[in-house]
């Protein structure tokens, strides 16, 4: 196999603290060398040179939370659509949620997904499994067997484990296998029947609200349980300042707690629901402008360390409904980089921080062999222009579903090339499978 040499790239790799011009050689699925500075390479029969023209070359993005709808809801998304959408968005590793049909709560479904992924996907797909059987919040799933089978984390997807005793046991039992539990923090009873944040706007739209406190109540309870059990917990889709404060305090105390959010929670707010726009119905619901600012600050202060796509495809029939019964969620792959870049530019956070948030940190959190350009790492690479202006709107969407809440939103970031295990799968707008 030919060596592939990426020359004149602006290399961004937080694991080696590199943020400058350099070159990377890929051979046999691996990164075999990395050099800094401007070098001249010659094409030869052994070499393929890719002149990166100072575009950013970074480890492929690792998406900590997405819904692939496989098995069971293939009318919303399937692995080949999802993998194309991810590849064109620079995402090389996907961590998918277990709320499928059947639910990913047993070894055979994990294996089914892996088998399908090998056949249909060009990006890496990692499965989570449910914390509780059938997502019922009552009985623990087989953490040991499931994690041996390849489940990389455990979560009840978009429902929280509400029973304190079950969550206590889950945290305790998980420590035997050093696995991570991920919780969607939303207190069930306070949020029951609600579909947007409660306040003047929900009252004016006649929609039952979910109070901000539903998030922090669940977070605070879980923090107590994590402290009791010395357990490890990650909170998904953090959307309120209250929860961020609680998590920050726990981190200061030394608890093993981390959290992530998705770009929607720092790019949209409740007013984007306008007149019952179901594309802006998310879970947790969009918050007010104040909390949007708190989420940005949480990222700035390193309380929120990962940004996920929260890719949640839904077909037309699940969205073209009265607001309160429409399914929550939005397409997310295509907007992960552009919306995160918007934040990076607004807050002047720098490219190392960008790659930490969407690649290195999620990979570290789940011990995935990804998120790094160190010599010997898998050659999962993305090449993109962070300054190229784009318009986010549904025409960009390559997923099977098109439930995208952004219309002509200005953002930055264009992907030129995506490589997985040394193979270029996407280049200059074309797939290469």
């Amino acid at each position, binding site marked *: 196999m030919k060596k592939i040499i990426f020359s004149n790239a602006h290399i961004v790799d937080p694991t080696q603290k590199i943020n400058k011009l350099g070159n990377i050689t890929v051979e046999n699925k691996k990164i075999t060398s990395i050099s800094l500075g401007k070098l001249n390479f010659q094409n030869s029969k052994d070499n393929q040179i890719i002149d990166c023209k100072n575009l950013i070359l970074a480890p492929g993005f690792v998406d900590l939370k997405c819904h692939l709808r496989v098995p069971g809801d293939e009318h919303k998304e399937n692995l080949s659509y999802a993998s194309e959408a991810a590849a064109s968005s620079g995402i090389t590793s996907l961590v998918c949620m277990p709320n499928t049909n059947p639910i990913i709560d047993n070894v055979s479904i994990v294996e089914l997904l892996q088998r399908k992924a090998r056949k249909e996907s060009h990006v890496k797909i990692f499965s989570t499994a449910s914390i509780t059987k059938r997502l019922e919040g009552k009985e623990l799933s087989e953490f040991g067997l499931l994690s041996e089978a390849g489940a990389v984390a455990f979560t009840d997807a978009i429902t929280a484990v509400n029973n304190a005793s079950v969550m206590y046991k889950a945290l305790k039992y998980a420590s035997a296998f050093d696995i991570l539990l991920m919780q969607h923090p939303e207190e069930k009873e306070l949020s029951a029947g609600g579909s947007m944040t409660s306040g*003047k706007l*929900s*009252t004016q739209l*006649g*929609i039952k609200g979910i109070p901000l406190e539903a998030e922090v109540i669940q977070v605070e309870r879980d923090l107590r349980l994590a402290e009791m059990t010395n357990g490890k917990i990650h909170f998904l889709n953090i959307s309120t300042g209250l929860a961020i404060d609680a998590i920050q305090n726990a981190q200061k105390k030394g608890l093993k707690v981390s959290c992530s959010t998705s770009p929607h929670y720092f790019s949209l707010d409740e007013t984007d629901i306008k007149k*019952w726009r179901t594309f802006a119905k998310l879970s947790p619901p969009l918050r007010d402008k104040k909390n949007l600012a708190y989420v940005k600050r949480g990222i700035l202060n390193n309380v929120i360390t990962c940004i996920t796509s929260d890719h949640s495809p839904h077909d037309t029939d699940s969205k073209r409904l009265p607001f309160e019964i429409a399914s929550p969620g939005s397409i997310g792959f295509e907007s992960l980089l552009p919306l995160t870049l918007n934040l990076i530019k607004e807050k002047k956070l720098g490219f190392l921080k960008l790659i930490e948030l969407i690649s290195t940190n999620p990979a570290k959190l789940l011990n995935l062999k990804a998120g790094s350009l160190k010599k010997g790492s898998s050659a999962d690479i993305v090449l993109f222009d962070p300054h190229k202006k784009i318009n986010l709107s549904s025409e960009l969407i390559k997923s099977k579903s098109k439930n995208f809440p952004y219309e002509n939103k200005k953002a930055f970031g264009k992907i030129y090339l995506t490589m997985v295990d040394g193979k270029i799968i996407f280049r200059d707008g074309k797939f290469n499978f």
Partner: protein
Amino acid sequence: MKTKHLLSIKDLSVKEIESILNDANKFLNKKKKNKISKNIKGKNIINLFFEDSTRTLTSFELAGKQLGASVINMAVATSSIKKGESLIDTAMTLNAMSPDILIVRHNMSGVPYLLSEKVNCSVINAGDGSNEHPTQALLDVLTILRHKKRISGLEVAIMGDVLHSRVARSNIYLLNKLKAKIRVISPPTLLPSGIEDMNVKVYKNINQGLDGVDIIMVLRIQKERMKGSFVPSEKEFFKFWGLDGEKLNKAKKNALVMHPGPINRGIEIDSDVADDIGRSLILEQVKLGVAVRMSVINKLIN
């Protein structure tokens, strides 16, 4: 009217509101009626009610028929729409029959708006979830006007289950546009969040809330909400938030009592008050409802 539909009070200008109410007054007067009634013969109105209703449905039906339109009532089985599965299909099917007006009631907020985006005809919101019931608010205001000759500056108390009430929301928007002073009186568990930012004064105590008001709008409360979920019991609700003669005495001497119906006697309102022909406008509201709906239909169809 500027808009093709009547979905929300928020979409109406004060001028449009006044014009609707003026026309409604004329419809009440047999001599003037024919002068403003436009060419409505042969027009088709469909009442598409996804939620049980007797009075609103009858009122719209009568209004349409008195104008000479043909009115078809469609009560869609509640079970199938619980999932919402056929909602848009139903509307599209009806749309294909080219009606002139679709009058929609649904138990979920925003449905008339959703349908108005899909069909070609005008849509009238006959009540959607906890969102709005614009014709009810218009008829309420017409009723007040006929007795008090003005809205501006009147102290109006809206009392009861404000949380779930579309009548309350439409009235708050409308009375605010017409510069009334609005109070809401409600058990704390039945007050929607953010209501205090909607230019109303909030009272949890009924005696303070009724002190010196001109108009009392009593809302209907569903019985299942008084079994401990929002209020401990019907008895307790009536004692603290139900309108009886004694509490009514806190209001101005000539204060009038309204209710959108159907009333729960002995729960939100005492029979003596409801039936007091000197104070209660409840039946007049029903009568004026037909005139207001005639006025709205008449305006939208032309």
